[in-house]
Every structure is written in structure tokens, then in C-alpha cells.
């Protein structure tokens, strides 16, 4: 019975959670939020799905894989992808910082690591919006948090 309720709630919360975390991510530069909070929210929502359906079910139904132990999760299962996710997040964060340096080399100036910039652009429908390079970094933060948290939760959950 509890499972049914939980699954129902999960179905409701899952999309909502993604939307909220997306909003938090986007507004971070101007309002409370940012990559970290968005990341934790996303991870929590997915964790909720695990709680409702179980890790193995997610593996089987969503990814069509057969995994049992924690180690198998690490090697073949979704944890493998989470690991890639946080590594990629780190890579994005560093790459964003390196881009400035690279731009410096191309233009023959010295621009330090992680120098950010921003532009205001006018986009149809949205009007006057701001494009900040720091968002790339924040995206990296988001990916790291989601990947790392889900890794830990999956591993603990699989025990």
C-alpha cells in the first residue's frame, strides 16, 4: 500500500522536481539558487524514484540491464554513468575556466584562469536577457553534484 502511494507521489513529484531544479539553476545568477541547489534537488528526485521503485527495477526497466551487487552497479550499471557524469561536470567546469586562458593565447594577451564574461542580448520573446559565461561553470557544478550524489545514494541503496 505504502509503495503504491509512494509511487503515485513520485510520479507527481518527478517532473515537478526537474522543473523546479531547472528553474533554480537558471535563476541562480540573479536570485537564490544555482548549480549546487539545483543539483541536490535533481538528485533527491531521482533518489525518490529509487526509493519508490528500487534501484534494480530502474536498471531493468529504464536501461534494460541486469545488475545485482554494488560492484556490478559500478562496473556496468547506472553508477558507471553517474561517475562519468561527475567527471564530465568537473571537466566542463575546468574547461570553462580554461576557455578564457585559451582566448587569451589566441588574442596574445594573458587572461587568467576562470576569467568570466557576460553579454546582454536581446532574444525574441524573452527580450533583454543576460548571457554569462559563469553559467557554464555552474553547469559543471550541477553535473558534479548530481553525479556524485547519485553515485553515493545508489551505492548505499544497493547495499
Amino acid at each position, binding site marked *: 500500500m505504502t509503495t503504491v502511494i509512494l509511487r503515485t507521489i513520485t510520479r507527481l513529484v518527478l517532473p515537478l522536481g526537474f522543473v523546479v531544479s531547472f528553474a*533554480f539553476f537558471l*535563476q*541562480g*545568477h*540573479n*536570485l*537564490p*539558487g*544555482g*548549480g*549546487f*541547489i539545483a543539483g*541536490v*534537488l535533481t*538528485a*533527491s528526485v531521482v*533518489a525518490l524514484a529509487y526509493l519508490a521503485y528500487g534501484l534494480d527495477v530502474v536498471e531493468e526497466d529504464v536501461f534494460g540491464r541486469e545488475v545485482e*551487487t*554494488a*560492484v556490478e552497479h*559500478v562496473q556496468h550499471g547506472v*553508477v558507471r554513468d*553517474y*561517475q562519468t557524469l*561527475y*567527471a564530465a*561536470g*568537473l571537466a566542463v*567546469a*575546468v574547461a570553462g*575556466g580554461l576557455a578564457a586562458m585559451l582566448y587569451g593565447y589566441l588574442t596574445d594577451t594573458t587572461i587568467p*584562469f*576562470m576569467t*568570466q564574461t*557576460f553579454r*546582454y542580448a536581446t532574444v525574441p520573446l524573452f527580450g533583454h536577457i*543576460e548571457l*554569462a559565461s*559563469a553559467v557554464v*561553470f*555552474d553547469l*559543471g*557544478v550541477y553535473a*558534479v*553534484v548530481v*553525479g*556524485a*550524489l547519485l*553515485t*553515493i*545514494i545508489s*551505492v*548505499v*541503496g544497493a*547495499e
Partner: protein
Amino acid sequence: MATFILGLPYDSNVQPTPDLWVLLALVGLPFAAAAATPLVARALGNRTAYYAAAVAAVCFGLVVTLAGTHGGAAVSWVGPLSVSLGFYVDGLATLVGALASGVGVLVFLYSAGYMRGEPGQPKYYATMLAFMGSMLGVVYAGDLVVLFCFWELTSVASFLLVGHYSDRRDSRYAARKAMLVTVGGGLFMLVGFVLLASTVGTYSLAAMLAEPAATRAAVERAGLLLPILSLVGIGAATKSAQVPFHVWLPDAMAAPTPVSAFLHSATMVKAGVFLLGRVRPILVGDHWTEIFVALGLCTMLVAAILAVCASELKELLAYSTVSHLGLIVAGFGFTGALGSETAVFHILNHAAFKAALFLVAGIVAHEAGTRAFDDLGGLRHDLPITAAVAVVAALGMGGVPPFNGFYSKELLFEASYEFAHHAGGLAWLAPVVAVVGSVFTLAYSLRFLAVFFGERPDTLGHVHRAPWSMTGPPVALAAIAGVIGLGGITAALGAPLAPVESFVGWVVGATLGPEAAGHAASFHYYLPTYVSPAVVMSALAIAGGIVCYLRWRTVRWATRGLLGALPVLRADGWYDGFVYGANHASTRVQRALWTGHLRTYAAWTFVGAVALAGFGYLATGIAVPTAGPTLGAGLTIILAVAAVAAVAAVRAPSHVAGVMALSVVGFAVTVFFVLASAPDVALTQVVVETVTFVVFLVILDKLPSYYGRIERSRAARDAVISVLVGGLVTVTTLVATDASPDAIATYFVENTVEQAGGHNIVNVILVDFRGLDTLGEISVVAMAAVTVLTLIVMRERGETP
């Protein structure tokens, strides 16, 4: 050397300065040769000894070429510290350098026979060569650091050589003992050197020796004379096995006999007395005399008694070496030329007769298969040449005229008599002790000789003739000893042995303090033809020695009884006591501190931090500000909630209750952040709290529900520590909130929008102003995941370190 062979008087003004390259070659060659030894040994096998002997011979040649020179030569090493790779040549260096290389040649030749067929020869010869290089380095060092360098290397070489038979427990014990005593003593010496150098402003020994009076004055001004004297003295005493550091030398006899002959009689142990001679011009004075005369004579007597008690050849020789080193130390201790003459001449004499005797002992042990006195006797028939060598050398050791040891001992008597005559009072003990020591010396010398005479025990099997490679070197040494002895007779007849006198005079000149500098180069020795106090003392010593030998059993019974009553004389106790005591203390300290309980460790960490910070606050005498409450009601209430919940967590009867209490703390803290206008922090706090507690509950589910009952005494102790920490935090908060600096924060408020294009300043700081912090932070998050994975994956592997 040509100067001495021609018998010309020494004159420092005409001496050229030494060539740096020759010195570098002299010191470097043995090390290079040592490095090449493994390869050479592969080609030469048992004949490696001749290679080593050749190297030593080349070194001896270089020593001879340097003998006509005087002064320093240096190349910069560590400029800012005024440390240079400096060398210094004078008489003393030449004497001990000639011993190191000359005895080296003979010992290597002897090794050809002694070590034949033994395993580990490459290691043996390499270490011996390295030792010779180190010894030459010590001798020719013109810089305190260089001297110390080679000094410690001789100790290391000695460690490796004493432990040559590393399978044997006694060898390992002896090696470690030698290392602990000599290297440990070296450290004291280093401190002395550092003090000396800091006072004088340079590590250059050559510079100090060029101006001994000024150096000494500087040291005295700094009030460091006695400390430096004592520290350097400890270095010398440990190396030269002076009482009470003589414990290591007898045990070091576990080394192969050539090692004993080379390191532990002729050279390494001479490094200590060499050092005294080296610094004597700078440091000699009243303190000097008190310390070293007492030390030397005490050692001479104690070790002579111990030698009488010895039951085998090498043990006897070891104690005898200690005793003679004591004689040399005492000689250097006396102020003035006479003391120096005693010491220098005895260094030479002792090297000749003692190395010869060790080699004799080696031959006996090698050919007869035993070194115990009780099993030996009448060997003159089996080993006639060896017996002849033993006679010359042992009588020299015993101080019987006209053998070489007699003359230096005569000088000691003369010096001690003059000293006593001059100082009076307790100083009269000096000649008395010298004579008593000499009595025992002659007694044990005769006992050593007895091995070759008298009845041949039946138990003794067939004794081989030793090969020439083994008899040759002691014969050479005995010949030198013999010639020096004969020189005394010819001198009495008006034809002194000029080269020896001139050479010794040169050496003595190098060890004189500024006040006695005029005496240089006028050294003479001869068989006395008239009665003087020294002659009377000699006569007493010889008569006493003969009587003692004739009453050997009684004497030995008495000395052994004395030793039984005063085991402190052997002094092994302090060393073993130190080692076992330290081991014991080690275990106790480790057990007492590392209890294995995390709370002990945490308690100390807390207490340490509180102590440090508290000390800081007290030292500056901060006034703890106590303004009235400024927080609004909301914040006050929410803080109270947090505090109460935290206390509830402490008192929680179960884990789950604890988690609930903690979540209240977390909730209160969140509200606090909201009220304190920190929306980002509050949001983060909420999500982090939630996830943490979910994980916590999942984990708790797998753990046993343990409700620790807290002992009253422990609770009280922990409460005290906790309150201390809480107090520290309270004080810190008060002083930190009391200040109102111009914080850099205003910059962010003013510049965020224009410069970084964001309105949420906190987020802009995180991703832009202080993005590097965030990069580190996400690295930590990623690593946490990596580590959690490691914990799980590696568990499955069951891999142990």
C-alpha cells in the same frame, strides 16, 4: 717527508701550501676505489686484497708528497653558511694520515691471507677502503663540517665492519652499540662545532688554527668555552672509547681481526685523540687540563684493570687499547709541550705495537683455532716469527726499556709529575694513577706474551705456520716499533734517530697552544742515563708489573673481585640500561598514548586547540566584550531552539531519537539563515539536511541500536572538555563580532552588477569572484563519490595491503 729524512729542522715559513688537487685525490681515491671494488672483486677474487693494498699504497705516497707542506686549501661548498670543502695539512694530519694509509697497506696485505675464501669479500674491501678514505678525510679536514662529515662516515664504516658477520647476534649487537655510542657522541660534537662556528663566524678550521689565540678569545667572550670543550670532548671520548664510553670497543672485537687492527687500534679510535690534538691549540687551558687529564688517566687505569681480567687475546687487546688511548688523552690534557709530546709520540708508538699485536692475535686465532688464554701456551715453537714480533710489540706495550712504548710512557710520567709539582694537592693523584695503570699494563703485556712461552697445553691441536701475507705485515710493524726503540739507545750514545725526532717535533708543533708555540721542533727522546722522578716512576711501574705478573693468579682474582664488586667499571650497564630502558619506555609510551580509543584522540585534539587559542587570548590579555543582547527576538528564540535540540541530541536515548533531535537543530539553523538574510544558505541547508538525514536513516537501519551508558567519571571529564571548547567558541564569537573592520565585502555589493553581471551576489561570488573555491569544493564532492566507490569495490576484492 724529505725534510725529516734529511733530519732538517722544521720551519713553517719555508713550507709551501698544499695542492688542493693532491688532497682531493688523496681523499677521493679510496672512495672511488671502494665504488669500483665489486667489479674488481669479480675479476680478482681472493686477490682483491692486493688491489686494496695498492690503493692504500698510493694514498700513502700522496701523504708523503704532502708532508712537506703546511696550511689549508679549500673549494667552496655551501657559500652562505661559510662551509667549504676545506683541507688542512700539518704535522698532526701527516702523522695520522700516514698511519691510516700505511697501516692500511699492511692490513690489506694481511687480509689477503686472513680473509681468503671468506664470503662477502667485495663488501669487506669496499667498506675498508671507504673507511680509509673517511679517515683520511677526518685527518686532512680543514673545515669543521668536512671533519664531521668524514667523522660520521668512519662510524658508519665501523658499524658495517663490526657487523660483518651479520648472521651472528653478537656482531649485530656490537655493531649497533658502536654506532649508537660513536654516532650519538658525534651529534654532541656537532653541537659543539656549531656553537664554535657560530661564535667565530666560520666553519673553517684552517682559519681558526691560523689564529688560535683570537679564536679562543672569541669563544671565551661568548662564555662558551666550557660548553664547547665538553661537547667536543664527548665526541672525542666516544670515538676514542674513553670511560664511560669504552663499552663499545671490546664488543667491536666481533669484527674480523684485520678490522680490529686497523679501525679499532690504529686509526678510527685515534680519530678521537686526533680531534683533541686538532682543537688543542684553540681550546687548551685550565678547564681543558682538568677534564682531559682526569678523563684520560681514569680511563687508563680502569681499562688496564679490565684488560687484566680479560680471558682471551682480543679482549685483552681491546681493553689495552682503551687504556692506551686514555694515556694519549691525558697527554694532550697536560698543558704545554711535554703533554703534546707524550700524546703524539704515543700515537705513533701505539699504532705500531698495537696493530702488530692484533695481527699476532689474528694469526694465533686463525692457526690455533682459539683465542682463549686457558687454551693457549708455548706457541713459540709453532709460530717463531710471530713470537718474535709479539716480544717486540708486547714489551713496547708494557713500557719496558728500550722498547718504543717506554719512551712515550716516560714522557707521561714526566708530564704528570710536572703537572702535580706545579698544581699540587689533588694533582698528585695524576702521577700515582699513571704509575698504577702502568703496573697493570706491564702485567697484562707479559700475560699476552705468555701465550708463546711455557707449556703447550695438550688440548691444542696442530698449529699451522701462517702464510707470509699474514706474518709480513706484523713483522713490518714490529720492525718500525723496534727501530724507534733502538733510536732511544743510539740517542743516549749521541746519535739520535733524527727523522723520527724531527717528525714528531713537527707534529707536536701543530698541537701546541699559542702560549707554548716556541717549543716546537725540539723533540728528543733517549734512554735515560740519570735518575729523575720519571725514571723512578718507570722503575716502580716495571717492578710492580713484574711482581704482578709473578703473582698473576692473585692479581687476577683480586681484579675480578674488584670488578664483581664494582660492575660499574665495565660500564656495560648504562648502555644496556639505556637501550632496554628506551625500548621499554617506547612500548609504555605507545600503549599509554595510543589507546586505540578515538575519544582519547579527539579529547587531546580539543584540549590542544583550546590550550593554544586560550594561551593566545591570555597572552594578549583580550578584554572579553559583553555588550547587551542585540539580536532580535526571532533570532534569539531560534538559537535557543537549536541549543535545546543539541542538548536533546546529547541526551537522546536512541539513535533515531538522536537523529530527530539533530533534524530539529538543522531546521532551527535553516530558520536562522532565513532570518539572517541568507536565502541561498538557507536553501542549501534545507536540501543538504534532507539528503543527509535520508542517508543517515538508511545507514542507521543497517547498524545495531546501541545505547551507550555513560560512566559518571568519564561524563564529568568529557563535560569539562566540552565546556572548555564551548567557552573558547563563546569568547571567539564575542571578540570577532566586536570588531568592525572595513570588510572587503562592500566591494562585492558595489561591483557585482557592472563587473560580473549578476544580481545574486552570493552566487556571483561562488561562480566568479571565488570560483576557485567552488572548483575545489566540487572536487571534494566528486572525490567523496570516488572514495565511497572505492570502499565498496575494494571490499569485494578482499585485497589486503
